């Protein structure tokens, strides 16, 4: 089975699940002496424990150099508390456990999963990595080089590349334009001193929230935490982390990335969206389900089912604190990209003008509600939900309320979402493909700025 190539596409979006009452079991909440908030759920079904941690503000959007947050996160695992990178990897793998640290846009993520009997050992390793990372120059250099190389590998894969180019095209110099994996230029100039400074400034227990779910009793958990993350020293408060005003496309932003060997053209289209927890979420989820969020969606019906143009198309809302975007994605063979985009824009116009039918809205409601329960089945998903709901201040019964609202969404509300967010004049469109075969088809949309995939950066 293949491991994904290591360019992290970080997005703060969470699939907002929905369901009946008490969809998420209520955890205990505690605070350690050093300010670390802890959610805890005991679940003895299986001899497993999942721990997740979120550090507010330590995300790519607040980093001083692009890619620094995620590089710092990765380096935390590359040697700690006197153990080398190889020893830390050995310590984790010998348990059959998983431990990852990575940066999302607005926060840093830690994820640890293991057999219950190994929980204390894994948390000891995790705390070593977070509290006493080595940040050696040698490991920094290896990791930095690995990331530069991975960017090239990503550009060999147009489906991956189009999302990176889109992020840049949509957000430009806004902090959310930062790619978690960095760019050739940013990584080229990065130093280990920046990593250390970033760590000192953004990592601290006051900003962190930990969630533990699984086969562990409360007493044991307290003991383990006292010996591990309880020893995390408070540091100077991290700078306030708030995102500047989101860019809103005015006119068409059109980018064509020339990849001369591509036999398929890939596109990403974006409009403005809304922030996490916004009142409109319920209606938006219904609208998106119908537009491009499931197999029988408008997009998939027209592009795949009826015409066989593509294997995959979808749309989604991505949300951050205060704002978000709406995304459409697909690909087709070179000579069909014009037709594919025509149909996509026709659907956008139809959704905006005519909206959706009552019957399909009922189908979408059923679909969202019916598919919700499995999204919180596993321990990691429960732990992750506590952190996300805490971070965005939505409350632990958020899903129940959202579900309730979804169950009442009608045509007027779903149509309003399309009417408000879709536009045939203001959007960002990025196409990756063989320019020689696709440029003529794109000309009617407008003038595309052409980039070469072999050029540095995005």
């Amino acid at each position, binding site marked *: *089975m*293949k*491991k994904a190539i*290591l360019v992290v596409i970080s997005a703060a979006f969470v699939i907002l699940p929905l369901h009946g009452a008490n969809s998420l079991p209520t955890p205990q909440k505690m605070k350690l002496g050093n300010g670390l908030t802890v959610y805890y759920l005991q679940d003895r*079904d*299986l*001899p*497993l424990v999942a721990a997740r941690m979120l550090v507010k503000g330590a995300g790519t959007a607040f980093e001083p150099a692009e890619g620094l947050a995620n590089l710092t996160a990765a380096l935390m695992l590359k040697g700690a508390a006197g153990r080398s*990178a*190889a020893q830390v*990897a050995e310590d*984790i*793998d*010998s348990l*059959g*456990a998983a431990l990852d640290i990575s940066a999302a846009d607005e926060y840093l993520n830690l994820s640890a*999963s*293991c*057999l219950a009997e190994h929980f204390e050992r894994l948390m000891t390793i995790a705390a070593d990595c977070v509290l006493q990372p080595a940040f050696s120059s040698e490991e920094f250099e*290896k990791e930095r*080089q690995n990331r530069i*190389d*991975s960017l*090239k*590998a990503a*550009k*060999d*894969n*147009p*489906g991956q590349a189009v999302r990176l180019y889109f992020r840049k095209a949509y957000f430009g110099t806004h902090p959310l334009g930062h790619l978690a994996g960095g760019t050739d230029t940013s990584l080229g100039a990065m130093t280990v001193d920046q990593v250390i400074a970033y760590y000192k400034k953004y990592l601290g227990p006051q900003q962190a929230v930990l969630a533990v779910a699984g086969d562990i009793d409360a007493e044991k958990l307290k003991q383990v935490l006292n010996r591990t993350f309880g020893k995390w020293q408070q540091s100077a408060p991290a700078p306030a982390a708030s995102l500047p005003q989101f860019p809103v496309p005015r006119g068409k932003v059109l980018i064509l990335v020339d990849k*001369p*060997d*591509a*036999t*398929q053209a890939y596109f990403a289209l974006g409009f403005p969206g809304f922030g996490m927890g916004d009142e409109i979420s319920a209606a938006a989820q219904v609208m998106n389900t119908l537009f491009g969020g*499931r*197999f*029988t969606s408008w997009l998939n*019906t027209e592009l795949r*089912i009826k*015409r*066989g*143009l*593509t*294997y*995959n198309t979808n749309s989604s809302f991505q949300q951050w604190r205060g704002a978000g975007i709406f995304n459409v994605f697909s*690909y087709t*063979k070179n000579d069909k990209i014009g037709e594919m985009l025509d149909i996509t824009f026709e659907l956008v116009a139809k959704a905006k003008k005519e909206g959706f039918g009552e019957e399909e809205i009922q*189908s979408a409601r*059923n*679909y969202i*509600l*019916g*598919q919700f*329960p*499995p999204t919180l*089945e*596993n*321990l990691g998903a429960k732990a992750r939900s506590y952190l996300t709901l805490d971070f965005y201040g939505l409350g632990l019964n958020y899903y129940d309320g959202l579900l309730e609202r979804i169950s009442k969404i009608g045509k007027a509300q779903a149509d309003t979402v399309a009417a408000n967010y879709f536009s045939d004049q203001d959007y960002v469109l990025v196409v990756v493909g063989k320019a020689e075969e696709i440029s003529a088809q794109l000309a009617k949309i407008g003038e595309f700025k052409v980039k070469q995939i*072999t050029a540095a950066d995005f």
Partner: protein
Amino acid sequence: MKRLTHALIIVLLLSLPLAAGFRSQDITVHKLDNGLKIVLHEDHDIPNIAYYTFFRVGSRNERPGLTGVSHFIEHMMFNGTQANGPGQFDRIMEANGGANNAFTGEDLTGYTNWYPAAALEKMIALDADRMQGLIFDPQVLESERGVIASERRMAVENNNENLLSETVRAAAIMAHPYHWDVIGWMSDILSWKRDEIIAYYRTFYSPNNAVIVVVGDFQTAKIMELIRKYYASIPRGPEPPAVLTVEPPQLGPRRVTVRKPAQTPEFIMVFHAPAATDPDFPAMDVLGMALLQGESSRLYQRLVARDQLAIDVSGGIGMSIDPLLFTFTVKPRPGTDTALIEKAIEEELEKIKKEGLAAKELQKALNSVRMDFYNPLMTISGKAYKLGESEIYYGGYEHIFKAMDPYKAVTLKQVQELAGKYFSENNKTVGVLVPEGGAK
């Protein structure tokens, strides 16, 4: 997303002290007169059901001219029967709160449905209907052919690692139908004939060639009543023809090169490897974990951490009905001389042949196997998959509850011997994708 081809299904099963509620006695097996086997496990944690249907058919059962057709039929299973026109299956399922997917491998095709318990009867009716009722409407068939061609372009032609992998597989395996990838060759995709597709469907989509696994919020007696109601009238089909071709022993190393515009090279090395039921399988799996799983693995440490020749390494052995391959997939750094990668892997394999693994590497593998066992049991879909997989590869779900035993029996001596047996020069095929054109 939907209906992914998956070429290799690498998963581990084992038996262990099991969680209450998922023991052998919590599972019931039923058989209809037409040969359909049903495996049931009630789990009332969430008000949902995972309803999985597995057919014993995959690319292994294909022939030249019809490569990729197992996967194509998987797609057509959503595209219309006498009772439900094209698209109805998905429309009805989603309107009732359900979702589905499907996958095709070398050895099996799986249909995975997830829906609220209340939708059960409607969903069973849909699934039973398509077991024999597909109409293969010519126009729909042509449209779906385009979808598959797009899938191949996405997954192979515009994915250098998969492109090389397909080439290496075809060089390593000469005679057995594992020679081609599950997706099939493009020229076959573009030319399958409707009557041949239908004949293939009739041959393999019979109740006696299927097993249904259901896990979730249902009552066993009630669901069996519904299954009988909708499936019992489906006639037993012919016994599908056995796959008789045996891959001849490889008598010397093979080497393939792909030249293509790219920014980074690709490197894959494979050796013929034992089938899932071969007594050598668990020890080879342990070798795979020691060599390739996690950052502590020998080849990650050697190629990525120490020599810095590669961005990443992956691979190992996957379950298969007939002998398949042990794979080393290396993502080289741009500009790397792949001969150095090959040499480093050879050196690491020689070390194991001479000195074997360390005891702690065996223990690490056992811990990993235990984690891989428990993880899927957190979800109804994970349980359904494990039960079905066990049925297909080991002939019965019971295997789950003793699968750990052969791993516990693996010895360091056995691992060392098998490294010598399988990782031999004559058994090796190496593939390299060499970037060309303006890219560096």
